[in-house]
Every structure is written in C-alpha cells, then in structure tokens.
C-alpha cells in the first residue's frame, strides 16, 4: 500500500493533566493514484492525522508507512518524505511572506539547493500546472492577487517540490463557486493526467465528492467509517449521527428514492442526476 497507518494513536501533552487523545487506533490504507476524502466534524482529528502522514508529528503509538517504508527516522529522511508528500494547509495564503510570486513558489525548491536555471524551470512548471501563465505572474506581489489566484499560488508553492501525493486541508475555504470549480478541475487533472494521489480533508465536499473514490470518516479521534464512496454515502443515518450530511445532489436522489421513484442513489454530480432522472421517462412508472 502507498499510504498506510497501523494502529496509529496520538496523545497530545501525554503525562500531563491536559493529556488528550486526538487519534486512537487508526488503521487505514490508500492506494497509489487514488483520491480519498477525509471527513469528520471539527475536533475529530483530521488535522492531526494529516500531520502524521508526512511526518510532522510522531505517533504516541502505532506506525505510519509510505510506499511500504515506516515514516520517521533521521531528519534527512523526513525531508525526503516531505518532498514526496505535499501538504496544503487551510488558508495557505495567510502564510505568504515573499515579495513576489516567483519567490513564494521558489521557496521550497530553493532550499533543495537547485541551480538557478533548474529553479526557474520548477517555478514556471508549477505555475503552469495551476493554470497561471508564468510570464504574467512571477513578478507580481502575492498580496495583490485575487483570493482565487492566491490559493493557486499556494498550491504551486507545494507542487514546485514535485510531490507524488497532495494532502489538502479545506482547500476551498472562502472561495466563490467559480474558484471552487477551478480548483477541483485542477486537482482532478493532477490526479487523472499526472497520477498524483490525493487526500482531501473538507467540510464542504459538494464538489470534492465528484473526484473521490474512497471516503474516510473520523469521529472523536476514531476511524468511524472507511470504504468506497458509494458504500459510505448509502448510509445516511450513520452519517447524520456523525455530524455529517449527504452531498447535496446525493441527498436529492435519496429523497426521490425514498418517495418511491425508481432512481439510483449513488449519484454525485448534476449531470449524473439529470441522466438518472431522465431515465424515468422510459421506465413506465409515473407515466400517464
């Protein structure tokens, strides 16, 4: 398995009166090239889990594996790991510190000690991958970009390390519908055309769910659900108990099916729903 955890447990401030178990006995795996959603209410442990996957935290017990090898060990090994697993934090543009888009995107690969020409190449490629024309953007001040462009620059700053895995924490927070669509189209391309493995932690999964193959649900530090998208979203009652809801389009299909219409519930996009509902025309049911 590409990414795997085995009985991963994390206790913050262990041995003090403030000890709090953030993750308890988490075992899951994610295959190479997959897209997984990580769901769960605030405080369920999503951010803690994410930080374990690229070695930012050390397990209290249990183990994380990447590509079959245990995560951890020397600082050099951890740095190598973080080149392969890119982490995009929540509201990443709040951490911008450079005077130009070039410096912002070049920051991480520059620390690898790359030659100038290779660095230029990395920055240009990363910006092009997020759909920002390098010639138009490298010299601009990151603070003067639109919110959507800032988010894309933040993503380019992670892609400049050429990672194989992207882990994203609430990637569309604060973006308008057009910005959200643009970001998810981009992530879909990175996955389908370039084979990046994606793990997306989010509360607003209307768009993300169209990409996902696997869904993990954390609840109070435990892995409450893990399975295919269809399996997880067939269980509306359980999701509601865990403080979650169905994706909005799926919810409409559940409502229709519950009202007695012969429609499939495993529907996640508008176009899928349109096709499925149009099938009613030929089904004979509800026809005069």
């Amino acid at each position, binding site marked *: 398995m590409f990414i795997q955890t085995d009985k991963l447990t994390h206790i913050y401030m262990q041995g003090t009166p403030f000890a709090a178990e953030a993750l308890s006995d988490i075992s899951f795996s994610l295959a190479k090239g997959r897209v997984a959603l990580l769901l769960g209410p605030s405080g369920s442990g999503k951010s803690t889990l994410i930080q374990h996957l690229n070695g930012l935290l050390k397990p209290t017990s249990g183990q994380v594996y990447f590509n079959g090898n245990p995560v951890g060990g020397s600082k050099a090994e951890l740095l190598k790991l973080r080149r392969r697993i890119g982490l995009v934090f929540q509201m990443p543009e709040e951490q911008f510190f450079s005077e130009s888009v070039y410096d912002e995107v070049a920051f991480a690969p520059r620390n690898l000690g790359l030659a100038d020409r290779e660095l230029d190449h990395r920055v240009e490629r990363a910006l092009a991958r997020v759909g920002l024309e390098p010639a138009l953007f490298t010299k601009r001040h990151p603070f003067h970009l*639109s919110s959507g462009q800032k988010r894309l620059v933040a993503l380019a700053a992670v892609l400049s390390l050429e990672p194989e895995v992207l882990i994203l924490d609430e990637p569309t927070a604060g973006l308008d*519908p057009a910005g959200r669509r643009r970001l998810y189209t981009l992530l879909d391309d990175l996955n389908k055309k370039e084979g990046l493995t994606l793990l997306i932690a989010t*509360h607003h999964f209307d768009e993300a769910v169209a990409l996902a193959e696997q869904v993990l649900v954390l609840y109070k530090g435990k892995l409450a659900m893990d399975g295919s998208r269809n399996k997880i979203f067939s269980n509306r009652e359980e999701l509601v108990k865990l403080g979650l809801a169905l994706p909005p389009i799926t919810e409409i299909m559940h409502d229709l099916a519950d009202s007695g219409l012969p429609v499939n519930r495993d529907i996640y996009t508008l176009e899928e729903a349109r096709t499925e*509902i*149009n099938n009613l025309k030929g089904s004979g049911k509800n026809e005069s």
Partner: protein
Amino acid sequence: MGNLPESLIKARELGYHYVGDGENIYPALKGINLDVRRGEYLAVIGPNGSGKTTLLKLFNALLDPSEGEVLVEGISTVEHDKIPMIRQICGMIFQNPDNQLVATTVEEDIAFGLENLNIPSAEIRQRVVEVARRLRLDKLLLHPPHQLSGGEKQRVAIAGILAMRPRCILMDEPTAMLDPAGSKEVLQTVSDLHKNEGIAIVHITHFPEEAVFADRVAVVNNGCLVKEGSPEVILTDLKLLHEFGLIGTPAVELAALLRNDGFKIPNETLHNRELVRALCSFRPIN
C-alpha cells in the same frame, strides 16, 4: 420607532478605492445605493473580489468612503467621534473565529466591547450573564475561547456584539471555517435573533443555501450593486448567477436542467422538497 429614520443603514452613491503599489488606484466599490431596513435579513452575494467585504467594512466605519456616504441611524460614518456609537448599533462578525476572540475566558470576551463603552461593571456583569443564557453559552463562561468548537467561537463573537444591544449584525462569511453542525448552529442563532428580537442581519455568503433564509438578496459584482430582490427571484435566476460565476442551490440547478428535458417544475423551486414533490407528480409531456 419615534422619529428614527426608516432605514438603519443608508449608502448613497458610495464608492471606495484602495491605493496599491505606486500611484495605482484599485476601485473596489462604485456608486452603491443600498439601504438596510430596520429588522430585515439581507444576504449579499457576489464572486471573490466583487467588493462585498469592503461594503461591510464601510457600513461599520472600518473604512471611510472615497465617494458618497454611509449613514447609520442617520449618523455619517466619517464622524469619527461617533464611531463607538456606530459600532454599538452595528456589530461585525468575521470569517475566521480565531481572529476575533481576544480574552482569556468566554466571559471576558463577551464583556470586552462593553468595557470599552465605559459601562458600569455591575451592569456589564448582568448583560454578559443574560446574553450567555440567551445564546446557551452559560456553561462555557469560564472556559478559554481557544478550547471551544468553531461554532461555539462564532456564537461567543455574536454574544459579544449582542451584549452591546445592537440593531444590526454584519457577518462576513461566518460559516466558511465551520463544520456542518457548527454552521447550522450559527445560522440558527442568527435566524432566531432576527425573528424573535427584530435584529437586522447583513450576511455575506458564497453559499446559495444560506442566502435562502434572507428577506432580500443583493448581488454585487465588480464593485457595483447589480440586482436586489427576494430569494425566490434572485436565487432562481440562474442566468444572472452564472454570469457572475455564482451558482444556485442544487435543487435550482437540477430543476433548470430537467426543465430543458421536458420536466414540469415550478419556476420558484428553491429547496429539495419542492423539487422532489414536482418530480413525484411528473408526467412526460409527449
């Protein structure tokens, strides 16, 4: 209402521009004429960068207009000595709950605004307790704010405003950082304040399903007020919404596609239940 003006907030020919690098001027708002009526729930929608947040900051005297004026209860926001009064009338809630809580306990945080208004401590105490009870925060009064959930943090921010007895709450994407339960908690709280206490709400949002609760929806694009109307009119006008990169609720979007395919669905369909009802009685037209 006595001789109070009919509008709580009045924006007249309002414009604002930011000054960027060098002499460059970026117009953020132009020629806005918009009133917030007493006790109304107004949703403001528009793409990123359209000027929504700038508008809210002008309402709250966080920015001075470059052109035109904003009157809050008849007071112009450029009368800087009246700013404490303006902010007492209109409190503001921001996107990120962590950026607006300042004190070490919930109690002190709710009291913060009152302390700055020079209110006697006995009365502060009384108002904090009363507000906490109304928002069901009484058990959390002695907790440090950083230990609360996102929804609780936003409710503490609302409580701090409520303690100042405002007539209006301005909210800038208050649920962007919250989980579904937290979002529901905040929207329910605000909706109750609007319905039961007649507090006016101005709510900026990117989610059409949140704007559905408003009495009126205003659409802002490229610094201009493009259109305003009831949620039934604005939120079902997909041509308008799509033109500005916005979307309708899933029910509105799906209904539009299905109408093209010959399904009969009422034009004012906003919610799932209306769509489901229409589809369950569907008979093909041919």
